[in-house]
């Protein structure tokens, strides 16, 4: 009672010989098929190395093409030799030339001896298959594939589409239930014998010779007819990337492989000397009854595939540069807040905000003369410079960089009509942005300024035009940012609930009351100022409906705790 190995290989024959020798030396027969296209010299060298083993056989070499029946034919040839010449073999294990045993072969013997009637073969109905690249599953069995997928992709696709359109279908022979699965299996002698001696085998072979990738379908389907106990999983650890290409193992995977407790893994990089040395060494200890557990490895592979297909949200770099129109993707990596008008209204808004929320509160990052980082820093996380020219050269990169560089710390900054406006559209389109806008608040510093009124009026008109465009942009249906807009009049009428709700966002759950509020600018006489602007022919509509007289609530809000709800 023992397991025999069939090896299919086409290159790196020195490694194939090494692994075959390892099994043969431990009294496990090996039947090897080498692709007829492998160099003759390599093959000769290999047979010479292996000729000392009496339990190794070579199958007549066929040229093998990926996705063609020749691979199945080679496997069938090898299986016939195995069953005919090695009567002690109870299980047959199909391996590739880039496979490497991870556990002693005695472990595998013991494992299989405890499950004498079990066929280990991944065999999944075509409806359940999730991994097929290109979406061909049942159609592998019902269409024809005369063109090579690797060499003539366009012809291949065109012919598939053509058949779909005209609705031709091949008839699946009786007794074949279409199943798919990993090419690498381990079958019992009885099952394999039944498949080889099936009276309808020639029908099946003819049929499968035109199925696409029959090495993932032939045994996987026929085992359903002949197998007694099917365990639908492969004993060979093999994982695929997003392109359907097997992941390769290197020396630095040693520990992961050891901890996987799998019997055999593929593919091994042929120059992974350490892996070959370690796993083919004699002193590897027997683990006997432990089940393979590749969960940890799977996690690593899943993460890698996700990184390749989805990447890190909000990152723009040399090998990840989403198209401008990729609306579904996050533009920045973390939420941030933008306050417009607050610092005009509250002189100490930055420090108050920083203290209340523990977030990083910047000044006007898009100030025309320089980037106003928190604390007036000249340089910020990631070596971002405060140079306005560098920032304006690519404002979006500046902001995405800032958010990326400060992961784990919420960023807040001030924005207003006096700033560079190029970033406006980006802010509106970024789902991570929260904008709190008090429109018309720019009029408060103007109100307090000692400038000539004509000049004030001109500036006010300009700011209003800029802000109106900005607000219109924020209100557009394409906006993905969270936007809150109040007019100045609305805001000063009752600022406390607004401030309270802003604070609570950073500290949800606790109903901390506002005990300290920022200092609001004195608005005595502001109504008259607004009226004067109107008298000069300007309509400061963004300020809102401000009463001419002084309203009761416009003064500094009371320090009394205020509870919302």
């Amino acid at each position, binding site marked *: 009672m023992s397991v025999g190995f069939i090896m299919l290989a086409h290159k790196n024959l020195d490694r194939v010989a090494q692994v075959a020798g390892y099994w043969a030396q431990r009294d496990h027969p090996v039947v090897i098929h080498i692709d007829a296209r492998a160099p003759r010299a390599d093959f000769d060298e290999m047979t010479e190395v292996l000729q000392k083993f009496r339990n190794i056989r070579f199958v007549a070499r066929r040229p093998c093409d990926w996705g063609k029946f020749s691979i199945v034919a080679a496997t069938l040839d090898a299986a016939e030799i195995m069953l005919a010449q090695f009567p002690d073999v109870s299980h047959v294990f199909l391996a590739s030339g880039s496979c490497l045993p991870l556990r002693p072969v005695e472990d595998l013997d013991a494992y299989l001896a405890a499950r004498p009637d079990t066929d280990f073969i991944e065999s999944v109905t075509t409806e359940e298959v999730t991994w097929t690249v290109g979406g061909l599953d049942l159609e592998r069995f019902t269409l024809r594939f005369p063109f090579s997928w690797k060499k003539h992709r366009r012809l291949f696709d065109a012919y598939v589409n053509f058949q779909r359109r005209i609705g031709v279908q091949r008839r699946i022979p009786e007794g074949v239930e279409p199943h798919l699965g990993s090419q690498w299996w381990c079958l019992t002698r009885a099952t394999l014998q039944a498949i080889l001696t099936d009276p309808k085998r020639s029908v099946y072979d003819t049929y499968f010779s035109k199925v696409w990738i029959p090495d993932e379908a032939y045994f996987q389907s026929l085992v359903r007819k002949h197998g007694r106990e099917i365990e639908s999983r492969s004993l060979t650890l093999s994982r695929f*990337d*997003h*392109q359907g*290409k097997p*992941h*390769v193992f*290197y*020396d*630095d*995977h040693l520990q992961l492989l050891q901890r996987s407790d799998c019997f055999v893994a593929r593919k091994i*990089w042929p*120059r992974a000397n350490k892996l070959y040395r370690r796993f083919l060494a004699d002193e590897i200890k027997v683990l006997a009854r432990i089940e393979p557990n590749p969960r940890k490895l799977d996690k*690593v*592979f899943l993460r*890698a*595939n996700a*990184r*390749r*297909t*989805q*990447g*890190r*949200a909000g*990152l*723009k*770099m*040399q*090998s*990840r*540069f*989403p*198209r401008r129109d*990729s609306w*579904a*993707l996050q533009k920045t990596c973390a939420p941030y807040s933008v306050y417009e008008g607050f610092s005009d209204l509250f002189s100490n808004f930055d420090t108050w905000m920083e203290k209340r929320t523990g977030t990083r509160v910047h000044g006007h990052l898009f100030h025309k003369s320089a980037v106003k980082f928190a604390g007036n820093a000249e*340089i*910020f*996380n*990631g*070596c*971002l*410079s405060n*140079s306005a*020219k*560098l920032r304006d*050269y*690519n404002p979006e*990169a*500046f902001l995405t*960089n800032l958010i*990326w*560089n400060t992961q784990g710390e919420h960023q807040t900054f001030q924005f207003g009509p006096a700033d560079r406006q190029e970033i406006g559209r980006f802010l509106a389109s970024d789902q991570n942005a929260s904008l709190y806008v008090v429109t018309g608040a720019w009029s408060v510093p103007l109100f307090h300024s000692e400038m000539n009124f004509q000049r004030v009026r001109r500036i006010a008109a300009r700011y209003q035009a800029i802000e109106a465009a900005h607000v219109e942009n924020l209100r557009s249906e394409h906006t993905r940012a969270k936007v809150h807009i109040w007019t100045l009049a609305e805001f000063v009428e009752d600022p406390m609930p607004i401030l309270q709700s802003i604070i609570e966002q950073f500290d949800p759950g606790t109903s901390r009351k506002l005990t300290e509020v920022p200092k609001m600018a004195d608005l005595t006489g502001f109504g008259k100022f607004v009226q004067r602007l109107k008298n000069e022919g300007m309509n400061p509509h963004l300020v809102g409906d401000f009463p001419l007289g002084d309203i009761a609530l416009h003064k500094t809000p009371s320090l009394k705790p205020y509870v919302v709800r």
Partner: protein
Amino acid sequence: MSLASTYRLRLERKKKRLRAVRKSRELTPVVDRTDEIRAKDILLFCTLRNERQRLPYFMAYYRKLGINRFLFVDNGSDDGSREYLLDQSDVSLWSTTQSYRRAKFGVDWLNWLLARHGVGHWTLVVDVDEFFVYPFCDSRPLPALTDWLDASSIRSFGAMLLDMYPKESIEDAVCKEGQNPLEVAEYFDAGNYMISRNPKYGNLWIQGGARARAFFGNEPERAPALNKIPLVKWSRGNVYISSTHTLLPRGLNLVYDENGGEKASGCLLHAKFLSSFPEKSQEELTRKQHYANSHEYRAYNKGLKRGTSLWTKWSEKYINWRQLEILGLMSKGSWV
């Protein structure tokens, strides 16, 4: 991409190839060991001038990665670089005293050598102060990467130039011969890079880092390009257009994913800012052999007062490739 512009690029590529053939007459073979090149070898191509001091470590670094074929163009060194290279058994050397600038900053020469010897090989084009870092470079030799690229049908591999600098002032950062320059210039800017797409060639145009911050704060548009594609499976007909920033055919420039995924990429650690730099930049300024009328060197000279340090408290100290990966400067892609 319209047919017309495809055709124009095709013409440009052909012209570039012809130009390389013409410029090849400027090269004199000094020692030619290219007949020893075997099918699977990875070839390193490099143009240099007076880099004797840097060469020993440079060679050791790339030999350790698994490169055993070096093809150098020596542009008139008089500091012993040439003699040093002659002694190395894995070096083929060509020399020229012609203008670096008029050979499109060495690109013409290298295009010719690549066409002659690179076809069918993975080729790495770097400068003597550039150190290639790729995912798992501390545990896997370069052939592991190129095998994986081959299996994934990827023909070119991007590696952004990452400017490294010392903490002390540049003229005090002395790197001894044979010493790892990254021990001296061990800091870099982690998060101030600006990227846009070049519609003509389809490559990304990356600027930023310490050079943009320190020398080009007032004219960012002139900050040097940092995008590089140094590792290419060379086919007949490939050409580098300007330095290793851009190639033709255009497909080779698509080393980035546009749907949100990350392709695998590396970095070229650029150990330019060492004590030899101020002198060198002065010299380059007088030779006037660099890009855009050596504007870059003029900017350095203006910015480089004695005691200039590029270091800031936000500078990142280099540890390994994993750190660069976490910072988002390079990516493993789906390579595990």
